[in-house]
């Protein structure tokens, strides 16, 4: 039976490193308020900010456009950076994206990749510590939610959830209920009751992975296969083709640059082809 623990309460007699616990004298203590189950050794913090991990799917809003790419608000203490290199089309501020964390630097710069713009639908914000309960064991909770509401649901590890479908409002309410009641026992039963799912259907729903239309449209490995430089309407590599024709700077070999200085002093001894200055460069010296 899980019980509420507060900062400073002893959890385990062995050291476990975790953002929500701290270790002192080889023992683990709770650092935040949470529910601790001593039998399973599980600790679920009730509140907490999102801490980025490589491989997380996160949902964010484009806040600014930078030289290297886009600054993305992830509703966490740290901003994400999405490099515009390799993007097939540009984004705009306030676009909502689902992306994957590809790198987290020592100073918590979050580099994002594989962006996908989310249009239509609805975004809700829950506590990042409750995301694992929305997904459930082997995605069971998420599968039930998707099957029962017939909605596409994308869960960002940072606590933002995108929902689109016919029973959008029902899904929003169900996820809100998970967010509020995740720390109380019997969550799955209450959610099943709330969704009005028949008990005999639950097992089938939980096991059946519902691929959302988004997931099937996500073109994995697109960048590597096409290698950019597609036609403009196909959304190929952006940038090169809108610069216009390359200007001709002429031949800029280093040999020729030395000519004008030496030409007046020792013009006679120079071979004819070297002494002959190029029009442009000769006048500037």
């Amino acid at each position: 039976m899980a019980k509420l623990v507060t900062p400073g309460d002893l959890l385990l007699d062995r050291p476990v490193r975790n953002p929500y616990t701290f270790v002192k004298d080889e023992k683990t203590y709770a650092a935040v308020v949470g529910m601790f189950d001593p039998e399973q050794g599980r600790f679920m913090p009730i509140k907490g900010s999102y801490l980025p991990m490589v491989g997380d799917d996160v949902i964010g809003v484009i806040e600014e456009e930078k030289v290297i790419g886009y600054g993305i608000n992830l509703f966490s203490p740290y901003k994400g950076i999405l490099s515009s290199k390799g993007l097939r089309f540009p984004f705009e501020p306030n676009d909502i994206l689902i992306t994957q964390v590809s790198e987290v630097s020592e100073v918590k710069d979050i580099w994002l990749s594989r962006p996908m713009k989310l249009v239509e639908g609805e975004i809700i914000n829950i506590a990042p510590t409750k995301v694992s309960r929305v997904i459930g064991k082997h995605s069971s909770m998420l599968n039930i939610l998707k099957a029962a509401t017939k909605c596409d649901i994308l869960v960002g590890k940072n606590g933002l959830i995108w929902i689109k479908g016919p029973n959008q409002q029902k899904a929003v309410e169900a996820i809100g209920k998970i967010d509020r009641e995740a720390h109380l026992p019997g969550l799955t039963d209450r959610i099943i009751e709330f969704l009005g799912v028949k008990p005999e259907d639950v097992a089938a729903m939980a096991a059946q992975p519902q691929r959302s239309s988004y997931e099937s449209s996500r073109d994995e490995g697109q960048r590597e296969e096409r290698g950019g430089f597609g036609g403009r309407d196909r959304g190929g590599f952006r940038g090169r083709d809108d610069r216009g024709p390359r200007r001709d700077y002429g031949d800029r070999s280093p040999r020729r640059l030395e000519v004008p200085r030496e030409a007046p002093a020792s013009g006679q001894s120079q071979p004819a082809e070297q002494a002959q200055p190029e029009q442009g460069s000769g006048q500037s010296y």
Partner: protein
Amino acid sequence: MGTPSEQPLIVGGKRLDGRAMDELRPMTIKAGVLNRANGSAFLTLGRNKVMAAVYGPKEVFPKHETDPYKAVVRCRYLMAPFSTDDHGRSGPNRRSREISMVIKEAFANVVVAEVYPKTAIEIYIEILESHGSTRVAGLTAAAVALANAGIPMRDLLVGVSIGKIDGKVAVDMQKEEDNFGQADMPIAIKPTTGEIVLLQMDGKMTRAEFEQALDMAYAKVDEIHELQVAALKEYFDRAALMPQDVE
């Protein structure tokens, strides 16, 4: 501590408000009172009313104060102009800046700041009504607000004040005892380890009285800590029933 009083502060073994020497004023704590703050708490201690709010972890402004290895803990303690008998001036003054600093340093000892490098954790303590021992009341409330915000901490801090009135050591000084007593000593203690993270003293005490004062403070820590834990528990039970805060 101020000028000694002509009126006795202890009458028939009881203090002015009828308390025993080792008795706290009635204390109530409620966590999660503000919707827009990440964490908050409202505390009453006798006639004191204290609101504490916590924001963060969030980006540091100004940028140059960023610490790349850990979070910066900030604190602002302010007494409302209407919190005292005489209407005061609004805004920080010498006293409130000092108290902000000592509370900040007390919390810097318990916040696990390494979890959130490059961020700021901001604590705001507003004294809405004051009647002595507001800094420890504010600190106790801020500890609950920090836990309510989900900030990793090594301990919930407990603040308690001890003093000397009419030659006797007493716990939890109220305004008259603070003004006309002989000493006033606010302490903040980590309840699980008993470490002291804040200790100030105004006035004079003998070594024996100081020892006695410390013992009295330690005796009250668990009582206050239980109230803090109960407030957090009550909040998370209540939060389950509240409609979702949609933003």
